[in-house]
């Protein structure tokens, strides 16, 4: 008997489509199909083996195209909450094998403006020129004011992650480095304290995962990776209200540490703590977010994240390697959600031991995350090669 229902669910398939700044000849549908074909090939499954589809608004069309109905479906643009919902649907017997897929191409065309998903219109921010970099900058500046966190510490995070992408042959920015923290600080300022190279890029691409029961996973050719725990924090809609560090609910837990509640629940489900984590596939929309997450999840004390990430701790061979494919800064950032799923895909690759670059030797536990305090939410998942 599993100690938590998630432990009866395994991720058995993962795939990325090709990723590029612009994918000529593709739209969101065709690039999603490429990822779906690749994930079916990864597992040796066919559409008739799938009885659940979580592909955002594309769930219905995909079920129709695959003729795999009747099928469980999920309509939210897929990211960690979707994977957890799929795992819940499997654990509660609503279906047994779920395809999660998402892709984006041809969406960002108006290049003189920031990407459309970074600037949703809302009456209290629309006239003030807000977009993701400015929203996350307001979080970072507050932390720098409170704790003396420095631009050099932020730049160290960005250089580490960009160097992971520099090495990765499938990263959009493969071969663009290597980078030193000084290179990051020398790039043009976007929204103080974020230089261009402190920020995520924009690109196009798709990815997909397949989840199934522990039992069925034993008959498949891939090494199963188990869901040890996972949960989601939200303080409100992204990019509509002031992204205040101290925004808090009745228990005092604040938006500055969004993700803490989710991490505590995830660690409890997994019967693990931060020191058990071998690889940190943290979401990296902006350099500061990595520092914030180490504090939020309890890897270090509040205010100490800037010091904590120095001296090679988060780089290759360090205690907590982060975002080992190059993340949204260098691997890919396909839109509103593709790159969020890709954090989980990289966590699975690490635990399978199949990373072509930056493989963490004998990785057993991966922590994956989505979101960030500038967006008022953070979702967390713990993956493992085995369950408690």
């Amino acid at each position, binding site marked *: 008997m599993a100690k938590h229902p998630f432990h009866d669910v395994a991720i058995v398939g993962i795939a990325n489509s090709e990723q590029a700044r612009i994918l000529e000849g593709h739209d969101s549908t065709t690039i999603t199909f490429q990822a779906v074909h690749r994930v079916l090939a990864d597992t040796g499954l066919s559409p008739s083996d799938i009885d659940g589809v979580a592909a955002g608004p594309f769930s219905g069309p995909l079920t129709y195209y695959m003729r795999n109905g009747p099928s469980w479906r999920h309509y939210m643009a897929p990211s960690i909450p979707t994977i957890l919902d799929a795992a819940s649907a499997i654990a509660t017997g609503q279906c047994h094998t779920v395809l999660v897929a998402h892709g984006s191409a041809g969406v960002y065309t108006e290049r003189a*403006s920031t990407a459309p998903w970074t600037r949703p219109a809302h009456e*209290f921010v629309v*006239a003030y*020129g807000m977009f993701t970099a400015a929203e996350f900058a307001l979080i970072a500046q507050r932390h720098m*004011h409170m704790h003396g966190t420095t631009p050099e510490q932020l730049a160290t995070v960005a250089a580490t992650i960009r160097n992971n992408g520099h090495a990765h042959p499938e990263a959009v920015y493969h071969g663009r480095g290597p980078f030193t923290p000084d290179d990051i600080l020398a790039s043009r300022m*976007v929204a103080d304290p974020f230089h261009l190279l402190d920020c995520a890029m924009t690109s196009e691409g798709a990815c997909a995962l397949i989840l199934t029961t522990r039992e069925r996973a034993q008959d498949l050719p891939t090494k199963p990776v188990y869901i040890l725990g996972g949960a989601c924090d939200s303080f409100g809609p992204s990019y509509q209200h*002031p992204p205040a560090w101290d925004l808090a609910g009745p228990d005092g837990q604040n938006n500055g540490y969004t993700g803490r509640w989710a991490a505590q629940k995830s660690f409890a489900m997994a019967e693990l703590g931060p020191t058990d984590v071998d690889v940190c596939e943290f979401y990296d929309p902006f350099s500061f977010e990595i520092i914030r997450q180490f504090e939020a999840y309890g890897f270090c004390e509040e205010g100490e994240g800037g010091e904590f990430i120095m001296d090679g701790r988060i780089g290759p061979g360090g205690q907590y390697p982060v975002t080992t494919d190059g993340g949204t800064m260098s691997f890919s950032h396909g839109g509103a959600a593709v790159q969020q799923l890709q954090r989980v895909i990289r966590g699975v690759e690490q635990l399978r031991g199949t990373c072509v670059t930056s493989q963490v030797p004998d990785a057993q536990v991966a922590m994956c995350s989505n979101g960030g305090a500038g967006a008022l939410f953070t979702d967390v998942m713990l993956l493992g090669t085995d369950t408690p």
Partner: protein
Amino acid sequence: MTELLQPQSPGIPLPVPTLYSQPYWDGCKVGELRYQRCRDCGAITMDPAPACSACFSTNLDWEVSTGQGEVYSWTTVWRPQTPAFTVPYVAVIVTLDEGFWLLANLINCPVDAVHVGMRVKTTFVELSEEITLPYFEPVA
């Protein structure tokens, strides 16, 4: 003389008021920064909402802020959201003296002078017939 940050020019995207935020925007047109206070529990709700953010009561009144407060966090933006915006511009979250946060742009201030704790007050700029925007400027 150091150049001072200016308000944006007409042509930027403008707010579309809702049923429950209209009194806020009506206040801006007459130079008042309005906020909601709960008649049941006394708490302030901001941004405008259909219910109290402390007790969820819909028994809300409008009051007028002093418009004075201090910078809680800031960012100077050098890459505009769209070409309609002139850079640099400074986005600030201000803690008003009544205790609520408001996000707006800072003007009439040298670009490198902004800092957490800076005392500021509201100033209003008409951008269309329907919309007058609150900005913040340093307290002289």
